[in-house]
């Protein structure tokens, strides 16, 4: 636990904190915050501990017992035999392609909506926003048959849907971002004879990196975690991590291969927690702005 605490960014208390009188309300604050945090930390610790036990050990000892020996080879078994490795690759492809393409095309649209006044500007803005309230989960029946009639299966329809599902959030948040950029630079570039495309590509796009990265990260994380569309469009053989874990959990009910499953859960979680720990500020700002401005 101490290692978790010290590796957290900004966890060390600042020395210049105003001295406060000890009071019951302070005690209560610490008590509740610690209780909530302790629960989360313990739950995670429990999953990690079980991922390091052997299956017989897991089934026979108390759930709170520490492993007698740390069986890191569970991770290797999960990665190779339980195919977590291949699920991991599929998740990487789907999330990278989905988030990358979606942010890219949404950035183009958002730029036009934010910076070019034309007649249907607002109408397009509202049109893209409708999808914010329409969950893809409710439209899966036409989607399922549409993909079949296009002759598409597996990863391709999934990525297409991931791209489409990111559009409302991305155009919305990036439009706000482009609107906040100063227009003088762009105007100056056009005055100097740059084409409108070059003014976008060489002036505005580089300025908007922070917004693009924040949007990409939020898309990436939600796609990395996406379950429903994967359930509909993928099979056991080409599953992403969430779906692969789902089938593993079903199998574990019969085969009792629980320790692999726990290792798989940790493998799924670690990349996302690392991204979150490193880029907490960008991610939380993106989430907050996306919600508050909507």
């Amino acid at each position, binding site marked *: 636990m101490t290692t978790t605490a010290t590796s957290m960014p900004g966890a060390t208390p600042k020395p210049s904190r105003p001295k406060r009188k000890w009071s019951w309300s302070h005690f209560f604050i610490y008590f509740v915050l610690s209780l909530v945090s302790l629960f989360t930390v313990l739950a995670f610790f429990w999953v990690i501990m079980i991922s390091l036990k052997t299956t017989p050990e897991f089934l026979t000892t108390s759930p709170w017992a520490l492993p007698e020996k740390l069986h890191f080879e569970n991770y290797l078994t999960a990665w190779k035999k339980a195919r977590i490795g291949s699920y991991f690759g599929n998740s990487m492809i789907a999330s990278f392609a989905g988030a990358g393409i979606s942010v890219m095309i949404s950035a183009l649209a958002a730029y036009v909506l934010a910076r070019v006044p034309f007649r249907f500007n607002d109408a397009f803005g509202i049109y893209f926003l*409708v999808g914010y*309230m329409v*969950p893809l*989960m409710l439209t899966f029946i*036409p989607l399922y048959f549409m993909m079949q009639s296009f002759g598409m299966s597996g990863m391709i329809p999934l990525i297409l849907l991931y791209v489409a599902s990111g559009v409302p959030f991305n155009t919305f948040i990036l439009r706000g971002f482009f609107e906040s950029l100063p227009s003088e630079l762009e*105007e100056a570039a056009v005055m100097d004879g740059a084409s409108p495309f070059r003014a976008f590509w060489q002036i505005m796009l580089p300025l908007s990196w922070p917004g693009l990265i924040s949007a990409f990260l939020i898309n990436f994380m939600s796609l990395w975690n996406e379950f429903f569309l994967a359930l509909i469009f993928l099979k056991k053989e080409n599953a992403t991590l969430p779906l692969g874990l*789902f089938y593993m959990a079903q199998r574990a009910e019969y085969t009792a291969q629980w320790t692999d499953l726990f290792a798989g859960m940790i493998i799924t979680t670690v990349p996302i927690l690392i991204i979150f720990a490193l880029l907490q500020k960008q991610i939380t700002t993106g989430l907050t702005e996306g919600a508050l401005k909507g």
Partner: protein
Amino acid sequence: MYQRSRRVLVIPFLAPTFIIYTIFVFVPLALTVYYGFTNWQGHTLDRPWYGLGNFRLILLDNQVIGAFLNTFKFAIYGALIIFIPALFISWALSQSIRLKSFYKFIIIAPLVLSVIVVGLMWKLLYNPVFGPINNLLNLVGLDQFALPWLGDSRTVILAIVIATAWQQLGMWVLLISAGMNRIPSELMDAARVDGANEWQVYWKITFPLLWGILRLLFILWIILSLQVFAQIWIMVPHGGGGGAEVVATLIYTRAFASQQWGLAAALATILLILIFTASLVTNRLTKRETIEF
């Protein structure tokens, strides 16, 4: 002059997003509503017009009514469970305390976890044989509370709501904290100077100014809970024999298992309308004068 020259960008820049979004979001939305009025079943692509037939069937179907009741239960339990802890925790995190960013990180972190990890973790925590929750209850002598949480139709919804609330708490704390940061501290200081205690400052100044954000969070929660699927499907596959059947799981089984595509689409349409109206109603009911600052 330069504004006009940039208009050449409109079509090429909008086209990719417009096409993908229209094909994969908008058209399926319209088609779902249309399919809801057809008697489309089985292995054909034959979709005879059925009028309000599906909707009539839905009203007479006890399984459907049960699924709707469970969905509402999920929404209401969740809102009740998250609300007070979220307010308290975000208030606590706004005080000058040590390890603030550590606490904040831990409390928000579940938000970025996959629903499969959260679902499986809680499912295993609740497990009556090797799960630590019941184990702990037995240890401290509360044997009567060591229930098969997910196996009992009376507790299953509550158990799943708790898991979901644990994850969503992060979003609430994040947004409420952001809202509290936007309130100018002069407002609170002025009240303190006038002799208000912290309790009064919170309820008379901070809380009313947070109302807009709380309203938003309630709407987000309603949208999330009316379509809740993954949590249920992961923790109690196939709705746990009806105890945890919600509308979304019912749509899924009516579509893929019984191949009643028309009926499933009609259910999806009802859920869509519910989501829209629930958001509007929440918005209206909780409307107070918006305070600009």
